[in-house]
């Protein structure tokens, strides 16, 4: 009886949470009278967007947007997500606009409408401080690091043949800079103001070339959509340009010292200091990771048990259906599935859902497929004589399954469940790619601010280990408590 009440409670909680998740986007918009938009930005693109030491997003883009929204009376929800994913998600309708240091290029003009160009930029090449490379000609045969989907990457590709270098791709700037600084790749192409800011703030690179391919950054919406938002942006931008707000914002970030946003060197040089300074961010990241893991495994278990049972029912149709589901979702990389659900489906149906909901569906389908496979395996490994004995007493197939086969099968599955639980926890880190600020993404964001790669990743790794240890204990306790009766 206690067991049943417990299951009911979990189901109820789940229903409430899912319901809330599904309605958040629409709910927030309805609550306010001013027009509300969802606007994406990059996670790390200082000085245009970065998190300050309090975990708040700041930067030229962010401050411009804030100033314009105030003047033009609209509200917005800012969603930091990797540039490439954000740019695609605007086109799929997930977001209304992008403000992420996006260069206005002819190719992009085909699919986006841009507001007034707000910042002049050019592409430069940068190399490690101690590099012996003297000019682009020295890059021949060597590998260059590029950030996926950026204008700088497009420029680099346009001159790739001429200079004969190879390329590799990164999703966030800081990892890319470190790769060059460490000598894994010999150079990177980046927008000039971004590179200058990074170097000023301790990234061990130097600029190799003069700005090329000069252009402007623009505020973008999907072509033909959200025209009133573009109009508001343009009006607001003209106003802040005129009254000097714009210049103040730019001056605040260009030439700012590291400590202004990143915190002091003393703090950054000790693990304890980093932990203390970023305590709230880490806690929020852990919270998201645990929430994704626990809700994910519950959903995956429900999905997996249903599909697993369908896979062993003596019915060709249900068997074929379940096998196909398992085949598809076990075969797809988690990342591809996450992108497909978050970016692919909305561009087809026009129905948006939050990154969190997309992440949970991803986990449910992917982890659920693995669970289905071992549920089917576990049930199959129960001796067929058990089913026969139960049926010969007059029990129906489902009653026999529930009362005789499943209790035995589940015991065989417990170790696989514990294992899947741990895998799910680790897999949540992949969901950082669709912009969920869980623990891994928290690490990325903190590093983009303070460049303390080793210390921050060490902390993140320890946190994962601690969580996995605790969850393993919890799973074993639950097994003892619920598995044996």
């Amino acid at each position, binding site marked *: 009886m206690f067991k049943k009440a417990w299951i009911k409670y979990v189901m109820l909680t789940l229903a409430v949470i899912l319901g809330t998740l599904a309605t958040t986007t629409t709910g927030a918009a309805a609550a306010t009278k001013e027009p509300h938009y969802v606007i994406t930005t990059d996670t790390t693109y200082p000085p245009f967007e970065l998190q300050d030491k309090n975990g708040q997003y700041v930067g030229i883009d962010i401050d411009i947007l804030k100033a314009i929204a105030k003047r033009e009376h609209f509200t917005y929800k800012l969603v930091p997500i990797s540039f490439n994913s954000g740019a695609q998600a605007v086109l799929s309708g997930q977001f209304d606009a992008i403000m992420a240091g996006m260069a206005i290029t002819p190719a992009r003009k085909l699919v986006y409408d841009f507001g007034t160009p707000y910042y002049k930029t050019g592409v430069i090449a940068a190399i490690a401080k101690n590099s012996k490379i003297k000019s682009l000609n020295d890059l021949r045969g060597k590998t260059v690091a590029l950030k996926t989907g950026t204008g700088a990457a497009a420029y680099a590709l346009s001159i790739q043949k001429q200079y004969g270098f190879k390329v590799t791709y990164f999703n966030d700037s800081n990892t890319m800079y470190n790769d060059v600084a460490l000598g894994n790749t010999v150079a990177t192409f980046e927008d000039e103001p971004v590179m200058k800011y990074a170097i000023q703030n301790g990234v061990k690179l130097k600029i190799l070339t003069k700005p090329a391919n000069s252009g402007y950054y623009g505020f973008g919406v999907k072509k033909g959509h959200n025209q009133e938002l573009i109009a508001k942006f343009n009006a607001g931008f003209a106003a802040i340009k005129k009254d000097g707000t714009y210049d103040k914002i730019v001056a605040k970030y260009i030439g700012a010292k590291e400590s202004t946003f990143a915190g002091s060197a003393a703090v950054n040089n000790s693990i304890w200091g980093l932990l203390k300074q970023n305590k709230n961010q880490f806690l929020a990241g852990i919270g998201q990771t645990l929430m994704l893991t626990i809700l994910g495994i519950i959903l995956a278990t429900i999905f997996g048990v249903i599909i697993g049972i369908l896979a062993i029912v003596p019915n060709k149709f249900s068997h074929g259906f379940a096998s196909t589901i398992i085949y598809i979702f076990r075969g797809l990389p988690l990342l591809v599935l996450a992108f497909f659900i978050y970016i692919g489906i909305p561009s087809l149906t026009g129905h948006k859902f939050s990154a969190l909901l997309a992440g949970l569906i991803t986990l449910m389908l992917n982890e659920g497929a693995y669970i289905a496979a071992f549920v089917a395996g576990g049930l199959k490994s129960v*001796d067929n*004589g*058990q089913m*026969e*004995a*139960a*049926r*010969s*007493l*007059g*029990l*129906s197939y489902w*009653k026999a399954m529930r*009362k*005789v086969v499943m*209790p*035995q099968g589940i*015991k065989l599955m417990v170790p696989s469940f514990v294992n899947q639980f741990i895998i799910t926890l680790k897999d949540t880190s992949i969901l950082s790619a669709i912009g969920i600020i869980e623990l891994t993404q928290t690490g990325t964001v903190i590093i983009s601010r303070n460049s303390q790669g080793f210390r921050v990743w060490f902390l993140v790794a320890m946190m994962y280990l601690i969580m996995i240890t605790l969850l393993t204990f919890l799973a074993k306790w639950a097994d003892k408590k619920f598995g044996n009766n």
Partner: protein
Amino acid sequence: MATKVKVTDLHKSYGDNEVLKGINLEVQENEVVVMIGPSGSGKSTFLRTLNKLEEPTAGSIAIDGIDLTAKETNLNKVRENIGMVFQHFNLFPHLTVLENVTLAPVELGKLTKDEANELGRQLLAQVGLADKADAKPTQLSGGQKQRVAIARALAMKPSIMLFDEPTSALDPEMVGEVLKVMRDLAEDGMTMIVVTHEMGFAKQVADRVVFFADGYIREEGTPDAVFNNPQDPRAQDFLNKVLNV
């Protein structure tokens, strides 16, 4: 006497392999029919078609006049009335002995939990295992397990009992205790169909002995007729081998 089981021209094939090649058999109320024959002769398969654990390929089976091969027949209802005992016991290892016995009557709404427990203890006493009610099946010997399996089948108050080589998986010293329970059942008037290699049991308890070979019933009659004066050459050969060890 009423006809409990009526089988007409029953065939069963696995792919190209036909294991039952036209079986006709009638069993009357209170009758004990023992089926003997070499391994692979089809006798176990035949027994398993009687409660449709095996799907017949052709022919008909009527239990108490109900046609098992008809689509509209509620198989679960028919099975409630046919107890089955397996060679490998097939006790439910996650349940206690008593729970094994009470599961079906409680789940099928025949008895309340209390009534089922009372009946269960009574049946366990009947098979000599009153003290094992709370044990788990893994704690029992083979003979004890099979006696629990018989009690489990009886808990549904069936009017027919099927036994599929109930003593073949037992150590020799445990065969007797299981046969004794079966003999008691027969004496109480239970209709029984038993597949076995225990010729002594067949001789003493059976009303009729049926000899299977190659998917056919080759010989059928009283134990005295079949054992002492078999007509079919296959039966003569088989009995010669098993009786004169």
